[in-house]
């Protein structure tokens, strides 16, 4: 039995198992499909936010508690760009719609890259290898970032304009699937595939994977991991900002508390998945997305607690998470 499960993909099957349990508990197939799509879409957006955190930790043993600031900034930057281009969004031309969305996402990505560079050089570099100060400093940076967001965008909720072509839902029989969710899922999948190819098929990826395993040895082979790390950090920050931007469009109403709320989910995801591997992060993100939506439907008050329980259960089973990087 266990051998069979292993052959079929082992822990990779967990999201499927979660889906099946969900189907049994929910019963109605149409609600189940809607919730599953929502869960997968959420999972993919959380994956965007979490992948960078996981890689950064794996490569440099740096845990950035301020990571959620990138998520918040991404959300607000994208919302501002979309608000500025609201004329394009409602235009009948799909081309203008797409252009506005693309500009918003690019703005979030660019902001993430720049903020990541600043963060790595100014905030984190002085405290490599010192976990206590790292946690404190990045937490301090998070506090400051949240205050900046409050100062710039205010504390009141902001409405996010979505492009017209992503509004509405596909109706198949009695099942309705929100188009935006499908889009979020597809975008997440593309990013995952790109990351996967980059890590497994390029020399850069080879260096990153080797660095995650044994940074010292990669340096002894003649490669500057610290320089590589800046790049990975920037990439991770940009992906987090992209995730935040997508999340803003998903929620359509955002507050500065968004980053803090997502941070908890992101932490749970990387702990479940195992630090340092994007496959693990994807697994964790999908499971958390699915379970949040199922439990949110079945017992709304337990949604966040259910993720916590999931994390506890997985840690008891596998103390380093589902698919941690080889160390």
């Amino acid at each position: 039995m266990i051998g069979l499960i292993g052959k079929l993909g082992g822990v990779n099957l967990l999201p499927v198992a979660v889906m099946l349990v969900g189907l049994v508990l929910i019963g109605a197939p149409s609600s189940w499909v809607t919730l599953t799509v929502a869960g997968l879409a959420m999972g993919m957006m959380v994956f965007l936010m979490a992948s960078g955190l996981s890689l950064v930790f794996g490569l440099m043993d740096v845990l950035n508690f301020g990571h959620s600031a990138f998520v918040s900034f991404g959300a607000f930057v994208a919302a501002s760009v979309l608000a500025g281009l609201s004329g394009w969004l409602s235009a009948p031309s799909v081309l203008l719609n797409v252009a506005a969305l693309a500009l918003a996402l690019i703005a979030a990505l660019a902001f993430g890259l720049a903020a990541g560079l600043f963060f790595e050089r100014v905030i984190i570099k002085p405290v490599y290898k010192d976990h206590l100060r790292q946690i404190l400093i990045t937490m301090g940076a998070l506090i400051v970032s949240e205050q900046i967001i409050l100062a710039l965008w205010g504390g009141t909720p902001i409405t996010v304009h979505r492009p017209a072509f992503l509004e509405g839902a596909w109706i198949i029989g009695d099942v309705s699937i929100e188009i935006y969710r499908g889009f979020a899922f597809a975008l997440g999948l593309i990013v995952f595939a790109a990351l996967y190819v980059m890590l497994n098929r390029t020399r850069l990826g080879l260096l990153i994977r080797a660095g995650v395993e044994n940074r010292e040895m990669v340096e002894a082979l003649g490669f500057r991991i610290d320089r590589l790390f800046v790049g990975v950090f920037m990439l991770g920050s940009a992906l987090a900002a992209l995730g935040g931007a997508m999340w803003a469009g998903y929620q359509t109403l955002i507050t500065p508390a968004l980053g803090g709320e997502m941070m908890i989910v992101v932490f749970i995801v990387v702990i479940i998945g195992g630090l340092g591997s994007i496959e693990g992060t994807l697994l964790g993100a999908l499971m958390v997305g699915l379970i949040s939506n199922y439990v949110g439907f079945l017992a709304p008050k337990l949604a966040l607690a259910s993720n916590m329980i999931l994390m506890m259960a997985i840690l008891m089973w596998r103390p380093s998470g589902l698919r941690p990087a080889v160390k």
Partner: protein
Amino acid sequence: MSLLSLRGLRTSIGQYAVLHDVSIEVPEGGVFVLLGRNGAGKTTTLRSVMGLWSPSPASVFFRGRDLSGMHTADIARLGIAFVPENMGIFGGLSVAENMVLATRTGQFDKSRLAYVQALFPALEKFWDSRAGSLSGGQKQMLAVARAIIEPRELILVDEPTKGLAPAIVDAMADAFAEIGQNTTILLVEQNFQFARRLGRDMAVIDDGRIVHAGSMAEFAANADLQDRLLGLAV
């Protein structure tokens, strides 16, 4: 001029001073053996050369160039390879990936690769396997193969025979003898029988200080000295 000179090297790890005064001259070519008991400072010496621990200022010279304060990667780029005690194999990567990482450009030199594979035939057999699944001896071969896949001027090797079966130790000795013909090797060992087969020059380190330096032939002939410095029961 020596290839590598350590001049009064001192190294502290955290608040503990490990090396107090290490001075050796490693000439170009052949195998230089650094002997010593457990905890004498052998590994720390190699790691200080590599810049993995910070050496005291102006204490490590490679072809006359001061290495102290340089980044490990830059030291490696000068032509120094390192085979650490734990072998430093990337267990999650394939043997091929481990090897290709050790090249500067990501491309193998065909003839060099053939030479290395001839030296360690097991590697070719497991070329696409995960390095983590290799046996201890095969991992050690991979670690050494990685160090010589491109010509290097100096190879630092830390206790390559630790935990290996006698037959593999013999194969290792042959490989090092071969490599030592055109590359300088600084070999750290506790296994004296292995070391005496290879070494031309040698030094003994104890409690972070060099307590003896000379030729291997002389040292191997002097049982009193061995007994006093290494506490060998032979």
